[in-house]
């Protein structure tokens, strides 16, 4: 019983502490976001236009590959391009956030190593700009592909995705700090995951021998949920429960490890 209580406390702390501290230090959070924008847009003529347009450019790249070069005309109730956009934009967001998380502590080292600083707000800071950029891109895409209702539904997808990613962000941040090899290896791992998740293809296009992988891969559940939500189909409750369960399973340990590691963070840097 004690263990369950402690576990629940960690989950509660993991979700509330970053959010409450982000609210308490909202002025600081805002300045950190401006700092990030300055870093991203430094020396460019178009400024913040670039972060906004990056997802669209990536989508254009995928469209060119699959629609123009391969001429894919497959349909499963929806066109392939609409299917691709529904999955690829959340995945690009996930990809960007997790890769940046591996470098989170080093990126902000100059800020927190010499001043008392609420390190717990860094995961939230990490999510804000990609959250905004990809929410805009995803909402616009959903509106164009599936209509106004889908656009309204799409608004919550990226924020919920980021919330679900919180334990993974914490793990990636710590592993990236303590094991530099992880930072080097993560892009490859994410690439493999993207290819093995039904994003660039319909689930039924996967060879029968690999179907079990779809069942094991939580990102397949994620994609199934997003597609169903946008297209107004019945929600795959199994996927929802599995994703929720996984989130609850990971958030407690992730938050506990994060808290235990904080005294180490300044020393390592």
């Amino acid at each position, binding site marked *: 019983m004690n263990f369950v209580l402690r576990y629940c406390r960690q989950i509660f702390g993991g979700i509330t502490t970053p959010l409450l501290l982000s609210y308490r*230090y909202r*002025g*600081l959070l*805002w*300045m*950190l976001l*401006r*700092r990030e924008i*300055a*870093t991203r847009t*430094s020396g460019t003529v178009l400024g913040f236009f670039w972060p906004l347009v990056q997802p669209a450019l990536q989508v254009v790249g995928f469209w060119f590959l699959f629609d123009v070069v391969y001429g894919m005309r497959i349909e499963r109730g929806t066109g392939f391009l609409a299917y691709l956009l529904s999955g690829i934009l959340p995945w690009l967001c996930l990809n960007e956030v997790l890769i940046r998380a591996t470098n989170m502590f080093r990126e902000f080292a*100059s*800020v927190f*190593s*010499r*001043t*008392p*600083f609420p390190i717990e707000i860094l995961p939230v800071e990490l999510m804000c700009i990609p959250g905004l950029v990809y929410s805009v891109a995803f909402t616009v895409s959903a509106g164009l592909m599936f209509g106004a209702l889908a656009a309204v539904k799409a608004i919550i997808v990226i924020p919920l995705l980021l919330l679900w990613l919180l334990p993974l962000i914490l793990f990636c941040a*710590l*592993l990236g700090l*303590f*094991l*530099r090899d992880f930072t080097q290896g993560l892009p490859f791992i994410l690439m493999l995951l993207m290819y093995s998740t039904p994003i660039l293809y319909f689930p039924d296009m996967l060879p029968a021998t690999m179907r079990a992988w779809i069942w094991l891969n939580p990102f397949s559940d994620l994609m199934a949920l997003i597609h169903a939500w946008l297209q107004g189909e019945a929600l795959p409750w199994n996927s929802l429960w599995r994703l929720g369960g996984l989130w609850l399973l990971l958030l407690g340990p992730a938050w506990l*490890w994060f808290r*235990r*590691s*904080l*005294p*180490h963070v*300044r*020393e*390592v840097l």
Partner: protein
Amino acid sequence: MSGSVITARGLGKYYKLYARDVDRVREILSGKPRHQQYYALRGIDLDVQEGQVVGVVGKNGAGKSTLLKLLANTLQPSEGTVSIQGRVAALLELGASFHPEMSGHDNIYLNCAIQGLSTAQIDQVYAEIVAFSGIGEFIHNPVKTYSSGMLVRLAFSIATHIDPDILIIDEALSVGDGVFARRSFDRIMAFKKAGKTIFFCSHSLYQVEALCDYVIWIDAGHIRRAGAPAAVITEYGEFLQQQAPLSPGAALGLDKVDDQHGANAMHADDLPRIKTLRILLDGVEGKVQRVQSCANDLAIEICFHPGRNLPMPCVALMFVGGDGRPLASAGNLNDGCALSPGADGLVRVTAHFPRLPLLKGNYNIDVYLLCERGLHVYEAILQAAELNVEQRSLERGIVNLPHRWEVQCNVETP
């Protein structure tokens, strides 16, 4: 004095050394220690009262910086407790948290926010920070375009405008170039005058003794001695002399006098500066003098510009041995000699040393032009004169102390 603002009990900090990076991860996950401990600080007990100026001295690597970081809350203690009442501003690594791509304006807001100020509070002090830093119209340019002097000025201005209750100073009592150095020094003195608590860590024993009312000597991570400045500084000075000869120029403990001199070489017209310096032995001028011990009169004639709208500076001299150790000093401030300018606005003052009692050896004289408190260095001329002292008699040591003999005759024994 209304109570302790800093209380530490058994405060210690050790750094964890791991054979492999992965051992740290395994330790955090399992809770089972896999490290070796390296203690930087151990068993520190402190009670610092509001308004107290505490000096921290110690050799490099003794643990001074670790103590300051623990007090500034940028390091977590490994053992013991530390309790701090009030907002802390630390003049440590000034400007290190600036983002080069952001403007001075945005860096002010960022750094003040990091220090815990709300946007409304920052709005209130913003104009003062900009005015004090003297950055002017460049405040909207990215700080990567600033000179190092501008960066330090802005960082100092931010750190001291957040209305701290406790100010932590690592080494420098003033920052920046000539004019700003004086302003920054005045600002720190204003904190002292306002009854703020100051933690001052320095190798300048002279400044520590002059400024502080309590001194802590840290050696190998422990408090070796703490108490009244004069007693602690004397003991620490003796310890240093036993350890190694001092380097030339460290006589006053003003390690950066060359920098100060360099800065003042570019001084603005309104800063005090030495115009001429003459070393006279029995009226004959020369930078290198051959002196007969206890026979020649030495005079050091200094002419300086006292600056504009500043309190009258003071002059100090230091006799330094060939090994760099300070032997004797003299200053008009300590001797109660008031200075005043002549009709041309220049101050002329001469220090006389009749029948110079130094014994044989080679000596140097350093000359300092200091602020009215004798703390801030406007200008330092190191090795302004070289004295080669010869003697005919057989006395040993450094100086022939003024003395007399008295012989008692026909004394009745009880």
